[in-house]
């Protein structure tokens, strides 16, 4: 299950519609401090079903909605679409959609069909993707290993194996 395309609108600093088309070759995201690189990673975590606002560097889940800037007011919702390729099996591509409205309402879709959050989460169990395993290493992932007490390190290892 590899990354094919990512569409972001209203998620954190990505107020405007943004589309990334991924290569299977090793790729880099670069840019100035504070420009939004880690926010792209947060968008991927989020659409894969991340439930902990702390893992998204936010205090409340609603904080992921674009909260406004000098010349733009806050938005009413946040939407991320992730297209995953599954060439090795003969199933087609997988389009995951997550939307959050400022009143707290959430929507989830798999291939345009409305589903529940748990349906998205069960899609990724046992694939080594998402929370199962280390497919996303966040900024500070190194420090948490380096500064880990023996019980912290045990927890990190348990989550990873």
């Amino acid at each position, binding site marked *: 299950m590899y990354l094919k395309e990512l569409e972001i609108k209203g998620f*954190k600093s990505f107020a405007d519609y943004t589309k990334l088309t991924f290569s299977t070759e*090793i790729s880099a995201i670069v840019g100035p401090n504070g420009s939004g690189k880690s926010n792209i990673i947060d968008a991927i975590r989020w659409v894969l079903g991340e439930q902990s606002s702390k893992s998204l560097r936010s205090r409340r889940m609603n904080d992921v909605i674009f909260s406004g800037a000098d010349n733009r007011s806050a938005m009413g919702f946040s939407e991320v679409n992730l297209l995953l390729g599954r060439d090795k099996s003969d199933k087609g591509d997988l389009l995951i959609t997550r939307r959050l409205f400022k009143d707290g309402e959430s929507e989830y879709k798999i291939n345009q069909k409305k589903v529940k959050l748990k349906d998205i989460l069960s899609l990724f169990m046992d694939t080594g*993707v998402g929370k199962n395993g280390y497919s996303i*290493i966040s900024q500070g992932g190194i420090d948490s290993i380096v500064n880990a007490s023996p019980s912290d*390190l045990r927890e990190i290892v348990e989550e990873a194996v």
Partner: protein
Amino acid sequence: IEAQFAEKFEILQTIFKRTFKTLFEGGYAEINYETPEDVLNSGVHIIARPPGKNLTHLNLLSGGEKSMLAISLLFSFIELNPSPFCIIDEIDASLDDNNIDRFTDYLLHFSQETQFLLITHRRNTVEVCKKIYGVSMAQNGISQVISLDLEEYMKSRGEEDGIAI
């Protein structure tokens, strides 16, 4: 569940020893139970000896050595539980350029099986990537992305500020 963890941990121990030796080009490290008599509750700790040095407490390792140690552990996790894609956010901040090259060599080795997406500020990391996503934020607080291949990216930086990243 516990037996399963013990089994996986044993495999991890073997992978970790080998990965450390590769990334450090020598030396020795282990990941062990702190209290092996109580595997269910025991914490886990690492001992490491970079090549040419005495076995030291982790605190005596330098900033970059600790990073390389953590990277060895992360790569061991990836080998134990391969994922189709792997996203890494600024893991190279404390590394010297030679260690970045060792780290990227290792990535290239896995890159047939795994799709890597790296966030970085470091030139040596960018240089092994084929596709570059340049993120920017105009004064207006709104992010934008532009995709380039490596040559186009290097050329645009070359014109801006003499081969800077």
